[in-house]
């Protein structure tokens, strides 16, 4: 695998996560993609929180049932 390509891909991902425009790229599309990444991350974080909440509720239900 090419080190140069690997480095270029890593640099692009890092730039998108920081909303920075790497050399040679067009700013408008990079900023728009960075915004999509932020939105998806928020959605994932909310889903993780929700599943954590569901697990707590499930444990409470189990505890309630175990009391007979």
């Amino acid at each position, binding site marked *: *695998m090419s080190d140069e*390509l*690997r*480095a270029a891909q890593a640099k692009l991902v*890092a730039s998108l*996560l920081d909303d920075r425009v790497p050399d*040679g790229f067009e700013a*408008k*599309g990079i900023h*728009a993609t960075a915004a999509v990444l932020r939105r998806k991350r928020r959605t994932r974080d909310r889903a993780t929180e929700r599943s954590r909440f569901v697990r707590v509720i499930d444990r409470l239900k189990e505890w309630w049932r175990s009391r007979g």
Partner: protein
Amino acid sequence: MRWVRIVTTSLSTLGLGIGWRPEIAHFIETRSDLGFVEVVAENVSAPYSVPPAVDALRERGIRVIPHGISLSLGSATPFDRTRMKRLATLARRLDAPLVSEHIAFVRGGGAEAGHLLPVPRTREQLDVLVTNIRAAQAMLDVPLAVENIAALFDWPSAEMDDATFLGELIDQTGAMLLLDLANVHANARNLPANGGLLLDQLPLDRIAYVHVAGGEERDGLYHDTHAHRTSPEVLELVEQLAARVDVPGLMLERDEHFPSDAELSDELLDIASARSRGAARRPAHVG
């Protein structure tokens, strides 16, 4: 050769499909006109915890295709065999006719982008994709179809246009093509300089199935949201494609802002009608 013939026969009967999502599971269950559904492989938490509703569809003879979103076939890092093994196991569990993934990368430098990113259209990148796709194919019992993605930006210094890149990839790997017409439309709007994917330049005989979806214009860019109704422009592409080739399978992707059952029915009807209009224009000797 016999194996290839059987696979081709089963793919040619996929028909109309939709992306299976829990939010529309009941709607899908009530349809009698669906030939296949696609499940996002990463949303099935383990190969043996397939939603019962998906298994119920299989029992009715509806084909289920696992659709990967995190293999990162375009990554110039060592191929992730663990993810691939899970995908292959899921395909066996679902008795899938094929598996699909994207021509994209989703991680780099140890960081996850969480989104499908376009690859540079260079020889070097083509070699990386060919190597990874061959590695994936070697672990699968069924064909792999690769999908063109929608992008909001392009890499600088491309060495070839979109159609040439895709054609060479399909040629060198023998992979099938999951042609996303919504992505073709999005890229034609956002990145007109990269040549676009013109239907006549594509290996149409390698199409496994076709995606359509809706999107919206925001700040001068077209976003492939899967949250809006399929646009007339994308339906026109369906018609144009069906006028050229017998489309083996055609499916709607909807991921957010799910409409009412009646609206979703209407949209599926629009899609099927566009295919019928195109097929009626197709010369009798073609496909």
